């Protein structure tokens, strides 16, 4: 019998929600790491019991946690009291040191600050963890200030993939309102050399050689809030989604505008269509229908809540442009929560489940592709991220 495990990162801890394939009754485990901000946690596709979590605090900085039993117990890799084989524990699982070597060709030490001056890169936190599709010990980390790191030893140590910052536009990147974060990492299942990433506020980037070289993929984006609305970089991309069986097709929720690319990001076109507002954070794709996509429209960049106090998921079955509101089971009055960029996910059961979390602490689930919704939990701390594992 299939099971579903929902991994929820919140402002004050992590929660693991599990159910059988019916998705009617849920077991709630947590808070794990109570009191800490959990920006993101995600399971390895190669070993579903291997989970990684980004645990952060304004006081004590970054911690990386790892579980090998599906979230029942956790450890800080390499940070234990017992010596690891070959030497003492290193305690460096939370060490994200920017590459300053000549290996990048032109190491960068600054990006653009809010006042237009150049500012040194300073590590703040890990926003997103993306486990490898094939190796449980390999994970990519998107961090603030924006950079991409990789571990190949189960998060015991991390190395920057420096080509991203080294490709030339880094000095033009500048922080979005939430910081200069690398928040989206998409691994192409058909091509191990291809990775997509996105940064607020720099835009989307792609490598076709495993991370050695990168290029911006922002052609077609238009952002009125930057001096050159069609600039190569500087766009506030909020999230990007891809269906694993159609890796050339990408969907993007930008600061404003919902976008689509049919050529792996070489060119984008707007598919906001009849959405009531095209501002938002999340975007995701149905597990079995590559042209069915979901967004949660948010009123504006200063009013981070749904229009008219009605929490509505919008679904397009045509890959954009034509959208329908999904409201059954969702609050349709006095609802002023937000849904953050990593807080939507889908399962892969026959009847696709869709899940999202809110800053009001609700995690909503639909077991019928969005037609009907119900809350799994209603009173968690503000939800930062939602990931789903479908377990056999």
């Amino acid at each position, binding site marked *: 019998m299939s099971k579903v495990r929902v991994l929820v990162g919140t402002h004050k801890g992590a929660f693991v929600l599990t159910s059988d394939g019916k998705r009617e009754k849920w077991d709630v485990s947590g808070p794990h790491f109570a009191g800490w901000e959990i920006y993101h946690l995600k399971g390895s596709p190669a070993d579903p019991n291997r989970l990684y979590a980004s645990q952060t605090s304004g006081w004590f900085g970054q911690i990386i946690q790892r579980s090998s039993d599906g979230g029942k117990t956790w450890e800080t890799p390499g940070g234990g009291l017992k010596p690891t084989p070959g030497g003492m524990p*290193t*305690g460096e699982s939370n060490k994200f040191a920017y590459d300053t070597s000549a290996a990048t060709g032109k190491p960068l030490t600054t990006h653009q600050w809010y006042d237009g001056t150049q500012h040194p890169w300073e590590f703040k936190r890990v926003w997103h963890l993306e486990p490898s599709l094939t190796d449980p010990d390999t994970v990519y980390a998107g961090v603030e200030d924006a950079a991409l790191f990789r571990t190949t030893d189960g998060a015991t140590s991390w190395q920057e993939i420096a080509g991203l910052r080294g490709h030339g536009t880094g000095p033009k990147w500048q922080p979005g309102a939430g910081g200069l974060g690398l928040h989206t990492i998409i691994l192409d299942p058909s091509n191990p050399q291809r990775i997509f990433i996105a940064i607020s506020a720099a835009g989307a980037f792609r490598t076709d050689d495993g991370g050695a070289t990168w290029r911006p993929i922002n052609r077609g984006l238009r952002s009125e809030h930057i001096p050159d609305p069609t600039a190569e970089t500087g766009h506030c991309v909020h999230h990007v989604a891809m269906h694993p069986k159609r890796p050339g097709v990408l969907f993007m929720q930008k600061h404003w505008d919902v976008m689509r690319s049919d050529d792996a990001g070489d060119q984008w076109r707007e598919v906001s269509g009849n959405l009531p507002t095209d501002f938002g954070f999340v975007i995701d794709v149905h597990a079995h229908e590559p042209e069915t996509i979901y967004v949660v429209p948010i009123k504006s960049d200063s009013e981070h809540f749904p229009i008219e106090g009605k929490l509505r998921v919008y679904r397009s079955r045509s890959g954009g442009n034509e959208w329908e509101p999904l409201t059954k089971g969702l609050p349709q009055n006095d609802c002023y929560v937000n849904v953050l960029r990593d807080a939507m996910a889908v399962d892969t059961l026959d009847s696709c489940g869709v899940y999202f979390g809110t800053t009001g602490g609700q995690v909503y689930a639909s077991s019928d592709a969005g037609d009907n919704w119900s809350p799994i939990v209603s009173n968690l701390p503000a939800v930062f991220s939602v990931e789903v594992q479908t377990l056999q």
Partner: protein
Amino acid sequence: MIQVVLPAHLRTLAHVGSEISIEVKGPVTQRSVLDAIESTYPMLRGTIRDHATHQRRPMVRFFVCEEDISHDSPDATLPDAVAAGAEPFFIVGAIAGG
């Protein structure tokens, strides 16, 4: 042995109680105490001071003998009472909202 009092979140992380005992070889200073803590409890590296620069994290404070020594030189000798284990070395998370 030096007695060290950790803030609650770091106790959880290190799987210890409120007070730990550590051995410091040579002069007892902020730096030598923190070196000993991090050597014994590697999971605390980076949580009290920066991995690379060893600068104290901004919202962490060090108290001994009812004095805030956060801004003292990391190589200044700590009071005899701390070195003798009679008074603990307090590591404190600054009081701030969040």
